[in-house]
């Protein structure tokens, strides 16, 4: 296996982008990533694109060919990858394996979702497809509902409080306020979160990530030639993926995601690193409880300590590990297929020292964590400076 590096990274603004369509977003992110990598279309040998539900959200399948066409990259082979909200990380993982294997040298990876062409009820219904359609959604479950079932159990077993959950949202908005690409560049207070409308008790609207349009892209190359393209290649040290039951009720425990735990263990073993080595992490905070569980499942804090650690500021600037400098899914936004790639873009900027206004000082090692559905898919990647 060859060592693999990110040589270029870019994203579009995330938000409700009424004036821009699916192809506009993906082309913008792709072109910017190629420019950032100093490569031309003719240098590319393959591409991978993550999108969860383009077929239902914008009525378009056959995304790989569409992108090759609209970016002027024909006859480049581009393959679509789907794993619900983890589609982006899965696409990145395919690109990583393609370059690591020696099959191709220069590979572009994108993630995209255009979500605001439909109304909220339709989008919620479509996102429900990430869970068990017949045995959860049919019976009245929603995604906030499923994560609320986890939150209730986490509170019952570990004494986690609504304030602890809210602290994750407050912290992520504080970070997102410094990110010009974020959907909500605005701080919020603990009171605002706690007093916001209840969606699925104990989760309130400010515990939930929003519906977002956006795209992100990175360009990959073997580490040994990466310096030809950029002075600051970021090495993807390893990538690990794990699966779990599609329905939440079939899990032994609801207070953590086994897929995350397994993927994290594999990733740390392969990288010969430990959780305390990570200085900056982008974790999958589709709901505040998801961030609390993630920082436990990734090994940053013992099980049950994620809530108190968040409330005490241990995951903010000056803490043990700075979590979700981009603003996370909560504040930066969550265009589902784009999120996994956006996380890699943010960590690339952090390790290069380019995260203006929200830079983690002397960041050397970073991590991304992307989850599909209620935890049936998880991908954990570890990155370090490649120069």
């Amino acid at each position, binding site marked *: 296996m060859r060592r693999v590096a990110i040589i270029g990274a870019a994203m579009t603004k995330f938000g409700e982008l009424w004036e821009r369509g699916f192809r506009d977003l993906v082309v913008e992110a792709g072109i910017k990533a190629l420019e950032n990598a100093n490569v031309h279309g003719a240098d590319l040998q393959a591409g991978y694109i993550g999108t969860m539900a383009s077929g239902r959200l914008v009525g378009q399948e056959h995304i790989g060919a569409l992108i090759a066409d609209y970016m002027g990259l024909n006859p480049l082979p581009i393959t679509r990858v789907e794993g619900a909200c983890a589609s982006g990380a899965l696409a990145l993982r395919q690109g990583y394996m393609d370059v690591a294997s020696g099959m191709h040298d220069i590979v572009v990876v994108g993630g995209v979702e255009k979500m605001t062409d439909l109304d909220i009820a339709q989008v*919620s*219904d479509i996102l429900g497809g990430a869970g068990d359609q017949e045995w959860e959604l049919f*019976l009245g479950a929603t995604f906030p509902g499923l994560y609320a*079932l986890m939150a*209730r159990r986490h509170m019952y077993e570990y004494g986690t409080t609504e304030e602890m959950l809210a602290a994750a949202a407050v912290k992520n908005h504080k970070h997102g306020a410094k990110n010009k690409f974020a959907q909500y560049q605005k701080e919020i207070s603990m009171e605002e979160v706690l007093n916001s*409308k209840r*969606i*699925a008790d104990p989760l309130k609207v400010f515990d939930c990530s929003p519906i977002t349009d956006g795209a992100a892209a990175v360009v990959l190359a073997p580490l040994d030639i990466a310096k030809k393209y950029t002075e600051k290649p970021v090495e993807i040290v390893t990538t690990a993926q794990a699966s779990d039951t599609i329905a939440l009720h079939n899990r032994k425990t609801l207070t953590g995601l086994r897929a995350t735990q397994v993927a994290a263990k594999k990733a740390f073993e392969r990288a010969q690193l430990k959780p305390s080595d990570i200085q900056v992490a982008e974790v999958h905070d589709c709901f505040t409880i998801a961030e609390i569980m993630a920082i436990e499942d990734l090994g940053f804090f013992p099980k049950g300590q994620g809530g108190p650690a968040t409330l005490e500021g241990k995951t903010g600037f000056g803490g043990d590990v700075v979590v979700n400098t981009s603003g996370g899914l909560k504040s930066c936004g969550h265009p589902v297929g784009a999120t996994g790639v956006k996380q890699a873009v943010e960590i690339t900027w952090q390790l290069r020292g380019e995260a203006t206004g929200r830079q983690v000082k002397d960041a050397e090692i970073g991590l991304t964590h992307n989850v599909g559905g209620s935890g049936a898919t998880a991908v954990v990647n570890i990155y370090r400076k490649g120069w």
Partner: protein
Amino acid sequence: MRQSIPLTWRRIPERYRLQGSKCVTCKTPYFPTRNVCPACRRKGKMEGLRFSGKGKVFSFTEITVPPAGFEDQVPYILAIIELEEGARLTAQIVDANAKELKIGDPVQSVFRVIQKDADEGLIHYGFKFRLVK
């Protein structure tokens, strides 16, 4: 959510009667029906098991923002129920107050309308649960 007639018809044993499976090899009960035991795989052998509908609340939430098709039911309680035979499922709890409900409360399945497609569409029936007093 679109629920076709063949899908609804196919699911009647599970939705109406809590029909599931049990692996003869490892004795693990499963709901809904499965053809392969995930624990034993090809060493397993599945047989039918009809669940009693008795169980306990494992976790619950009160849904106030509903998905399409459930607008006239909010607020409603959604729960994970641990059945006495051992399997768990997701279902609504009816005739209960979310503020008084507790993890561990005993419940029993009841036959109810789950959702309706449209004014003249299919009416989908299935299981919900209620507290055992």
